[in-house]
């Protein structure tokens, strides 16, 4: 099973081109259609429109030359409302969304587009925070996992698709105080085997301590180019009391980081 239609949101920021390159590579690998999507608020500045169009032109050309079936869509309005309906209408399987530095994931009291999209989009959603332009093709992907891997099928499809596109090595990373005696949780080991069946090189690593800090330290010390986190399933109260590791990592990421929210 693989993606058939991938959306990538492009805007006036250069980081959106980095994220779009992930989408382009996955589209090549999965032989999927690619839709380059832009939405501008009403009354947007002319320079924003110009920069966005320039990025769209650049990416469209790149995708076209790679033989991908690519279309570009530009709409006027609130992206938080337009994108979910467009993605549904176009029957998209996966949407890449570039997270800006001012958008704080997990801060429910804020009303950024990403929060609207998390609620409204029904497809697989990859919210990407890019910190650099140098590694559009990551060689090492870090995937932190909890003891029980939720939405295994969707998660497998995404990670396998991503790693397969770039021939990347995937490191499954787990934190537990009990690891020394019991080894890696069975769910993670079986997930690793499923990835290996898709010809992905898999490593297993463990750590202890604060989740957010440990993920960051692991990513830097092991030279990972990309982190793929699961969207936090903690409720508001849980996040207030016990913090939000995914939010902490994506707010100050050591490298490009994807927050993957499986489709409903």
């Amino acid at each position: 099973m693989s993606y058939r239609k991938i959306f990538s949101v492009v805007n006036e920021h250069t980081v959106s081109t980095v994220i779009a390159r992930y989408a382009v590579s996955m589209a090549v690998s999965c032989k999927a259609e690619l839709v380059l999507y832009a939405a501008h608020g009403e009354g947007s500045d002319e320079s924003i429109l110009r920069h966005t169009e320039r990025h769209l032109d650049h990416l469209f050309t790149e995708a076209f030359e790679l033989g991908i079936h690519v279309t570009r869509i530009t709409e006027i309005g609130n992206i938080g409302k337009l994108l979910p309906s467009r993605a549904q209408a176009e029957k998209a399987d996966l949407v890449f969304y570039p997270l800006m530095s001012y958008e704080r994931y997990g801060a429910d009291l804020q009303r950024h587009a990403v929060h609207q999209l998390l609620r409204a989009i029904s497809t697989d959603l990859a919210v990407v925070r890019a910190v650099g332009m140098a590694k559009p093709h990551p060689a090492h992907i870090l995937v932190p996992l909890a003891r029980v891997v939720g939405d295994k099928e969707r998660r497998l499809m995404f990670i396998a698709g991503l790693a397969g596109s770039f021939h990347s090595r995937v490191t499954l990373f787990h934190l537990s105080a009990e690891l020394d005696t019991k080894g890696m949780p069975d769910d993670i080991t079986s997930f690793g085997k499923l990835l290996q069946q898709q010809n992905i090189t898999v490593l297993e690593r463990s750590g202890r301590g604060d989740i957010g800090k440990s993920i960051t330290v692991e990513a830097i010390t092991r030279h990972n180019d990309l982190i793929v986190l699961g969207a936090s399933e903690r409720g508001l109260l849980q996040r207030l009391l016990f913090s939000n590791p995914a939010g902490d990592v994506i707010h100050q990421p050591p490298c490009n980081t994807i927050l993957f929210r499986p489709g409903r």
Partner: protein
Amino acid sequence: MRIQTLSHDEVFSTLLSTPQGITAEEATRRRAEYGPNEIREVHTRSMFSRLAAQFTHFLALLLWFAAALCFLSEYLHPGEGLLRLGIAILAVIFINAIFTFIQEYRTEKAIEELRKMLPFRVAVIRNGTEIEVDAVEVVPGDLVVLREGDKVPADARVVQASRLTVNNAPLTGESDSRTLSDTPCEGELLDCGNMVFAGTLVVSGSGQVVVYATGMATEFGKIAQITGKVVEEVSPLHLEITRVTRMVAIIAVAGGAGFFLIGSLVGRSFWDNFLFAIGIIIATVPEGLLPTVTLSLAMASRRMARRNALVKSLNAVEALGSVDLICTDKTGTLTQNLMTVKTLWSPEDPAMSGTVARLCNNVTVTQQGIKGDPTETALYNYAVEQGAVTGERLGEIPFDADRKRMATLHRIDGKLFVLIKGAGESVLPLCTSRKKAGLSIPIDTSAAAELKEMLQTMASEGLRVIALAYRELDQLPEGEIPEEGLTFAGFMGLLDPPRPEVPQALKDCHSAGIRVIMITGDAGPTAAAIARDIGLITGEPVIIEGRECVSMPDEQLREELKKDNLIFARMSPQNKMHVVSLLIEGGHRVAVTGDGVNDAPALKKAHVGIAMGLAGTSVAREAADIVLLDDNFASIVHAIEEGRAVFENIRNFITYIFASNIPELIPYIGYILFGIPLPLTIMQILAVDLGTDMFPALALGAEKPSPDIMQRPPRPKSEHLLTRGVLMRAYLYLGLWEALAGMSAYFYVLHTGGWSWSQTLATTSTLYLQATTACLAGIIMTQIANVFACRSPNISIFTLGIFSNRLVLAGIASELLLAAFIIYTPPGNALFACAPIAASVWLLLIPFAILLIVIDESRKYFVRRSAAQTKV
């Protein structure tokens, strides 16, 4: 597709840049998108939270509780003076918190002034024009122009290079410079020769690079980020103070509850028992402990600063004293980081060796001095000192990391020469002749073997060996400079000399029972040679390289760490932190020294991180607990000495402070059990705990290190600040003697005033006030003797010198002045419910003070004798 693998055009395309750079408008947009190109402080606590922490640690909470009890008691039963007591306790909390906060704030500010890593101004091409901008303004996609002497502002990909050579030492720790090119590379990012990294230095040449990562996204920034995320080990003193305060809390609350119960059983009223319990708690809690610990640490840190060790965190002072293992870097810490020519082996051709060294060289001579690669600078300086000739350069084949040699074509005195220098294994095969008695003779098999053997011998001494050769030409070459048919000139052996004071410092470490392990990014033989030279190793070295470290299982590495003469070579930052972690897990108290960015995570992880102040990077200095202002390894030994003294001094003043608890408790016990008038009031207790005891206790904190402190091993981890021996000495011996003095004076005044047993006395009567004052005077007098006794647990005060600690004398003077105020002035009398006492009371108390010293000196004598007999 990774940045290092891209072709020239692909780099511009991927980074959305052009050979004319980006526009100014685009730069502004990207700056808003990626933020400024700077290293942010990660996870620093706000000033408010740091100040708040001073009010919420355990002892402060205990004092808050005591103050709350006082205010509650005053509300329920006013007029007992508890309001004043509560306010006084609050004053202690606030003064201590603010004092500690100011100390830490001042030392941190001193460190902040050392921050100067990223360059200020950078040349970039925007809109097709070269301009200068602040380094903080550089954005991804910028086309930066690098020239000799520049610091690289951000991580970038080389797109044009003209002998562009960089030194990555600030990032990787390796002292070798690297010549870069713009050709694609399939290797890992840090290994590729077409990349430059923020914080590194351009040694020579020039080039253009396209930025792909700025600020915290650079390799430099990532190290700063993980440095901020490494969990610091809690200092041993912090653990001990927490333990002491918990024990004190248990004793205080148990005592208060116990006496409340006893009071209830003997039929006293609830309110009387409650007041009594509060009195017991307040008497037991050493309110003066916190300020004296803080001031002792602060005074020690000032003494350490005078010895060139700047302390950033007060807890690091004592932590350094408990260290039993130092992991030290080599270059810049044990050595001077100055490559020099140690030896020239050129039996027949020294002049030509000098000529090659001087002319086959790309250093730049400026008004500020010689600029260039450290190895080339060393060769050039040596050659100039030897009087080598100059010439006109006509051509060059630049140094290449694969070929490992460099060639130049020169005209010298009208003659044409090819001059070649490089690694022995690269240059020797090209040599076909050598000079002997002024004649050029072929190199036969035995001569070749001799040269190889000499090369190996010099390398085994830890020298970096440069082979020098030349060839005379009849005419200018038509194509490439010919590199074969050379005449061998000589070998130059280079070495980074050790710091002169290091051997003695290592001997001091050895006698103090502190083990030193070298962890370096340099090669094994070089590291071993230096280690032998400075006396770090005595036998056969055990060298573990970084790649072995990575593949070695932790269990095996733990066993290797126990071996003597251990050296870690070719170590990466991750390896270093891994080794430090294992040593800490193994129960060692570890200090780590370093100066590079690569040292920062290990500096943070260790119990004490020690950075170099002069040569150290700002990231290393910020991660460290202590900064050596003179980069001198020997200063660490002095700092350890001071740190050890701190633990001893804190234990001494705990003994001193705790001793006064017993004479404060005994009066209450007497009052409860025997029905005598209360011999000591709460305000008088406060006068001792917060008044007369404070300055002498502080003076104990300033005691100099005892003469044998560096001849003893580090204190064991299991040894605590507060031990049974300390409690017994304070409570059962010194304290009881003080109680005896106080109660004797009390009863003396009552007896001479005509009081008889079970007679009630009004609390405002002169006789009662005088009697309680006499009890107070007894405590004060014996505390004066106690401060001398507590200067050392085992060494006689006559050995130390009675007057050697002038602060003790000043403390006693202030104690007597305060006593005089309390006892002989109306305001003092009114505040503390006292009355003037006769001289006869003091005459009665003097023998108690003298006998305290006599008895304690006798005890110390027997303890020393017993210890000496045990040794034998």
